[in-house]
């Protein structure tokens, strides 16, 4: 149990049954008035934010979140299936909870699945993943348009900007935190 004075940026608490992360926290006390704690909190399931002011003495339940290492297996309709590396149990996560990470999910990729009350609420991919380019325009030598990048589609369907020398069929490394091209993989 936390009291309101324990709240800090980054702390995870349970509110109305959902996990929230504190994104802003400030102690305030207007002259001769009472102590107030101004907070902003983000719902870790649906991303909505709450702007709330609390008085001394309010208490909060911590959000017990657990990360489990799992392997991506396959996609069916809008659900992604993963296997727990320890229990071999299979679970299904909706596209909404996967978010942008779906751009980087290739077969057998190991990810961290964030669990709240035995329910998956999000995943974290490795910072760098290697994906094969399935479609991009060929590099025209002597191109003088001055463009230093071009669009490319990778095996997951994700489209990003890559340098002009990247060709179809090549493997590239993508930084999953930004979604940007990082390097070409030598095979």
């Amino acid at each position: 149990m936390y009291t309101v004075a324990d709240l800090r940026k980054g702390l995870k608490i349970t509110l109305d049954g959902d996990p929230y992360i504190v994104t802003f926290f400030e102690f305030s006390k207007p002259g001769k008035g009472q102590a107030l704690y101004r907070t902003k909190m983000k719902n870790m399931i649906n991303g909505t934010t709450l702007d709330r002011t609390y008085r001394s003495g309010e208490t909060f339940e911590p959000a017990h979140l657990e990360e489990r290492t799992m392997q991506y297996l396959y996609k069916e309709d809008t659900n992604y299936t993963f296997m727990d590396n320890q229990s071999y149990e299979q679970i299904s996560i909706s596209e909404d909870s996967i978010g942008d990470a779906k751009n980087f999910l290739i077969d057998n990729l190991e990810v961290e699945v964030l669990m709240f009350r035995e329910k998956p609420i999000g995943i974290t991919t490795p910072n760098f993943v290697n994906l094969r380019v399935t479609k991009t325009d060929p590099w025209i030598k002597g191109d003088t348009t001055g463009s230093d990048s071009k669009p490319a589609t990778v095996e997951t369907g994700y489209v990003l900007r890559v340098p002009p020398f990247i060709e179809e069929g090549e493997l590239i490394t993508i930084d999953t935190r930004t979604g940007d091209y990082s390097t070409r993989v030598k095979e």
Partner: protein
Amino acid sequence: MQHTLFPAARQRNLRSRALILSAVRGFFCSQDFLEVDTPHRIPAPIPECHIDLVHSGSWFLHPSPEICMKRMLSAGFERIYQICHCWRDGERGRLHLPEFTMLEWYRTQADYTSLMDDCKGLITTAAEAVGINGKLVRNGNRISLDGPWEKLSVREAFVRYGGIEAEEALDRDLFDEIMVRDIEPRLGVERPTFLVEYPAERGSLARLKPGDPDVAERFELYIAGLELANAFSELCDPVEQRERFGKELVNRAGLGKTAHPLPEKFLRDLAGMPPSAGIALGLDRLVMLLLDAASIDEVVSFTPEEL
């Protein structure tokens, strides 16, 4: 010698702080004030609902030097000031330290309007000590110190920024929330603002305004949204003061807070206190403001966490 404890910016801030302190003393000296030094450890502080005390044996570390300084006014001192540490338990944040530095001053035969002139003179002098002439920059706002300073009543501020009458905010127990969220950030952004005439029930130790007993002659000074000082035309009536202390004790009990003994000697001496005005200014915050520091941590030698 290698200084590894403080980053260079904090070292510079501590040097500037000393310049500001020196200028503050120079200002009060030029105004014929006497510097006093009253005990920090006292047996019976003023009962205030929302101030929690730090114990020191069976006594307390003072949350402000108010009691002793007012007793000095009763004893015949006319203009006194004090710079001292004060303690308020549990107050910690970007603008709060549980042990902080207060600048408090009193004038007899004066009301709170004379303290507004003092504030302007003092802050202008302190600003000049660190090279600020007329214009203060904070959070990207340019605040004019040299023109007239704004006076805004609490009533007007609630309507203008809070969209609600102050009386209604009090009735619905939203006064502090609206003050912190909607009003304070908008005060003193172009020029310093004196927020004046608090509802009587928020009068604390201020006298009620002659001819308008719904409000107390109390102001708070705000610059760039930062609350710097709290001032009163002092209440000199020991009977009314005792009544207000009683209400504070009832409110404290309602919040499950402990009662402590009333400052009887203060109440006794209050009967002999001449009409006076007094003000408490957070010195760390003044330094923050003048050095454009985001947090009070940047302008003190050590925070409690660093001890």
